[in-house]
């Protein structure tokens, strides 16, 4: 029983990270109908920047905040400079641009920082925390807490601020939004910025576990796809919940199903994608898309 609780909590911690990245995917998907394949690499690159800042002697949380700011501006700049020229191009064109972005970010990170794994610090104590008879990793609990705070702030932003409302409007109905005087292009840019920011949090929270290297987000992006598919690509809340579910399933299956162990864990994510697409393609909380042809 203790092991079970432990695994669930640690699953929630990694699940929160999957969920964050899934949320970043869904935010951009809802606004532009495009899946940003470079989301993971953007997160990885932000994490390297955080590493640079920490190594330059900044206290962890200062570096953390600075990284969020840089990630936001970087995401916004990518949208304005790289995505905007192909805004009205066919979806496939934009997908190719995103994949190009993935390769570029990956290679630049490898070129600047090398492909050798680096340890990344956790802001939380190493000593496990004991509650009752069960020990929890302090980083697990801390990462879960940070993720929840970020997600909650995003919810409040989108739900209660005028800018958040304008961004939701721009995603839903760009033509009407323009007629309300909303600068739709900039709203998309801010959306990319926020998605990059959420990704940066995910990157910094997962790096102490998986170590820092240019390919660190590859597997995690697949988990994020599984989460977004499970929750529904049209539902931000669903994506987060999907992430938590995938994280817990992954951990429990890894613990209790002998032949899967740690080596076959990633397969679980792909199995989730497959099962959801066969059984309920719109995901748990998504709406089926209707396209007028």
């Amino acid at each position, binding site marked *: 029983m203790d092991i079970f609780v432990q695994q669930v909590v640690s699953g929630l911690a990694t699940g929160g990270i999957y969920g964050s990245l899934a949320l970043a995917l869904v935010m951009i998907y809802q606004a532009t109908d495009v899946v940003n394949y470079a989301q993971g690499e953007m997160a990885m690159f932000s994490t390297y920047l955080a590493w640079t800042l920490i190594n330059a002697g900044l206290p962890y949380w200062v570096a953390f905040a600075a990284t969020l700011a840089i990630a936001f501006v970087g995401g916004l700049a990518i949208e304005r400079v790289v995505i905007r020229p192909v805004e009205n191009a066919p979806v496939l064109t934009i997908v190719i641009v995103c994949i190009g972005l993935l390769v570029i970010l990956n290679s630049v990170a490898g070129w600047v920082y090398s492909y050798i794994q680096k340890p990344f610090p956790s802001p939380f104590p190493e000593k496990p925390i004991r509650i009752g008879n069960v020990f929890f990793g302090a980083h697990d609990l801390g990462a879960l807490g940070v993720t929840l705070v970020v997600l909650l702030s995003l919810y409040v932003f989108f739900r209660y601020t*005028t800018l958040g*409302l*304008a961004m*939701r*409007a721009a995603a*839903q*109905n760009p*033509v*009407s*939004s*323009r*007629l*309300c*005087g*909303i*600068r*739709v292009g900039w709203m998309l840019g801010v959306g990319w910025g926020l998605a990059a920011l959420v990704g940066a949090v995910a990157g910094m929270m997962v790096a102490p576990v998986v170590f820092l290297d240019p390919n660190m987000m590859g597997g995690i992006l697949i988990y994020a796809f599984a989460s977004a598919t499970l929750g529904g690509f049209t539902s931000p809340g669903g994506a987060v919940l999907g992430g938590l579910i995938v994280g817990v399933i992954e951990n429990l299956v890894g613990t209790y199903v002998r032949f899967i162990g740690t080596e076959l864990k990633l397969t679980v994510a792909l199995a989730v994608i497959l099962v959801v697409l066969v059984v309920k393609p719109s995901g748990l909380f998504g709406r089926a898309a209707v396209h007028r042809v």
Partner: protein
Amino acid sequence: MALLEVEGLEAQYGWTKVLHGLSFAVDEGGITTILGANGAGKTTTLRAVCGMVKTAGEVRFDGHRIAGRATEDIVRLGIAHVPEGRGTFMQLTVEENLRLGGYARASRGTLAGDLRRVFEYFPVLGDRQRQIAGSLSGGEQQMLAVARALMLRPRLLLLDEPSLGLAPLVVREIFRIVRTINREERVGVLLVEQNAAMALDLAAHAYLLETGRVVMSGPAETLRKDDAIRRSYLGY
């Protein structure tokens, strides 16, 4: 003095030219209507004024050139467009739709007051404030579209076929409210309609469009008495 002056307006979709040099005007606080059959270019005319299609020619609002400017910027000058199909934000609540209408206004402080004001015009929207806009009936959505436009505190209101697909009683109600708004707040109105009888009743000036050209114009009174118009557009 004319609030909106349009001279030699042309518009095209791809290679197809839809408007061939229209000229018309809306007076400060006046109501002008553009009549015409399906495909005459009425909707395109409104879209051209708002910079939503590629245009050539001169469009002046309050004496300033607005042709070629971005839609967002034109709206910010105080031109509210109630588009064809109403442009409702279906997944947002009625109140959120209205707040978006007021988004581009300079002063945010009066938002609550403005909400109260549009709820006085459209009490039914007040009752449904927290409902998802997609759940409203067609007539209610048309009211919401007009209310959303009012939240901008516009100087010019562009209405694209507000009567389309609505019950006669609802249409009458909407026209009555437009008249009130025009009188009490001195908002200029440019109305595009297929329902010529109601439009000529409301407007002071009228233009008749046929395949992208103005074929007749003058005081609404004169057009209403014209035999050809009566036969083709009023149906008696």
